[in-house]
């Protein structure tokens, strides 16, 4: 009984943590799907989102939802600008040059962020009063519920956009065969911009949610979750949208189980160990059986 309780408890913690990884992983996977770039600056967009959320709720006294939308919007614009300024000029350049640029952009955001908002961690305000529910010994708090609700809503929205809208179909077309997409009349640059906007918006949402969950944010907060979300994206099959969702959740659950049953010291090591094992058996990720099917 004690064990099942503990297990369910950790599963709940894991799924809420995992849905945050999933939100970030989606940006990695979408950008990779469309321009085959691992956008290393993506984790820092998540940090940026957390800060916009912080200032929106503190300085501008915004309620949760407007603050969330504001953070997503600002991050979307920054994502578009980064792509235009840093990646687009390198469209024909060797992969390695773009990768190094991405690392440069990442460092710029991290250390630029330190200049702008100081390296001091900030305490994220309690956007809504913390409330815990005890359901037969299992503790759920309303932050976890909000995280889950927002993540699910965003993922449903994304799936709808990608599968049902014209822009979403264009994104899938560009991802599959860029030149063929051009021949349809699709403005590929515009689709790339939209992809960066959506991916960045989702990462920013994750940043705000994490701020609410852990209360503390700092300019380097994007490094570790960014890396883990990347792992999640690869785990699910890079370039595959449902893969990023699945990979994120699995990673979150593994981490929670390791923290709960073994020790939180091994949490990160376990996450990366699992990645290595899964990739040994499924080099193209969990949902990556068909190499050509990217989105």
């Amino acid at each position: 009984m004690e064990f099942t309780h503990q297990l369910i408890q950790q599963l709940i913690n894991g799924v809420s943590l995992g849905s945050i990884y999933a939100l970030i992983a989606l940006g990695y996977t979408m950008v990779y799907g469309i321009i085959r770039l691992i956008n290393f600056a993506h984790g820092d967009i998540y940090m940026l989102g957390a800060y916009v959320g912080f200032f929106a709720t503190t300085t501008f006294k915004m309620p949760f939802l407007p603050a969330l939308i504001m953070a997503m919007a600002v991050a979307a614009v920054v994502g578009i600008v980064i792509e235009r300024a840093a990646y687009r000029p390198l469209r024909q350049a060797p992969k390695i040059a773009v990768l190094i640029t991405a690392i440069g952009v990442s460092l710029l955001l991290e250390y630029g962020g330190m200049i702008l908002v100081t390296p001091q961690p900030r305490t994220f305000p309690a956007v809504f009063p913390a409330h815990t529910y005890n359901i037969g010994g299992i503790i759920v708090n309303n932050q976890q519920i909000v995280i889950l609700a927002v993540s699910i809503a965003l993922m449903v929205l994304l799936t709808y956009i990608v599968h049902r809208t014209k822009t979403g179909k264009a994104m899938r077309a560009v991802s599959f065969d860029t030149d063929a997409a051009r021949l349809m009349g699709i403005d590929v640059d515009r689709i790339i911009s939209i992809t960066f906007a959506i991916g960045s918006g989702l990462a920013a949402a994750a940043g705000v949610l994490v701020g609410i969950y852990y209360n503390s944010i700092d300019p380097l907060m994007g490094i570790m979750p960014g890396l883990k979300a990347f792992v999640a994206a690869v785990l699910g099959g890079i370039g595959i949208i449902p893969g990023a969702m699945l990979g994120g959740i699995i990673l979150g659950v593994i981490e929670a189980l390791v923290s709960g049953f073994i020790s939180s010291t091994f949490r990160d090591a376990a996450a990366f160990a699992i990645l290595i094992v899964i990739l040994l058996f499924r080099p193209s990720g969990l949902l990556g059986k068909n190499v050509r099917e990217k989105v």
Partner: protein
Amino acid sequence: MLKVDSINVYYGGIHALKGVSLEVREGEIVTLIGANGAGKSTTLRTISGLIKPKNGQIEFEGKNITGVPAHHIVSLGISQVPEGRRVFANMSVLENLELGAYLRQDAKGVEADMAQVFERFPRLAERKSQLAGTLSGGEQQMLAMGRALMSRPRLLLLDEPSMGLAPLLVKEIFAIIKDINAGGTTILLVEQNANMALSIADTAYVLETGRITLSGTAKELSQSEAIRKAYLGG
């Protein structure tokens, strides 16, 4: 309708088209034949705006379209069925056709054209929700053609539509090309199957390692000794 005037195209250091000129008159079927690597696909890709020529000019319906990006070329009325079909394998037949109509705003017209495509290619109608990647080669060719027609082009560029198809299917595809042309769409047809291409074309050009070496009416060319030797197997 289309005038290509001494274009030079390079891939890095490779000089792929060396001053190619050709003309397509409205209502015609013009064929461009030549061996592997002659530059046929490069010619079509340049017309479609996927590659920019280093110099030379391309004119369509009196407008200079040299260097216009591919997604604008489509809206001008030129559509291409690329070599190897290039259907979106991870999407359904219906979605592929919808993408063909990507730039169009007239929902009614799109619907009518969709119905026409299904009428022309009944096999596609039976497979609307099937993933394009699971279609047979012939069906994929039909889908690629249907998709190109969905933008309602005035000039249709076809790159080796007979590639990899059984003789019976090749016949069927060529009959459809003739029919599309009879419906008022001008056609520039790239082929290695010179026999078939010359049999339906009005005008023909021969491309050899980046240069047009022969041109004339399809009839003239099919009787020419040099062409018979090089491309028609005797």
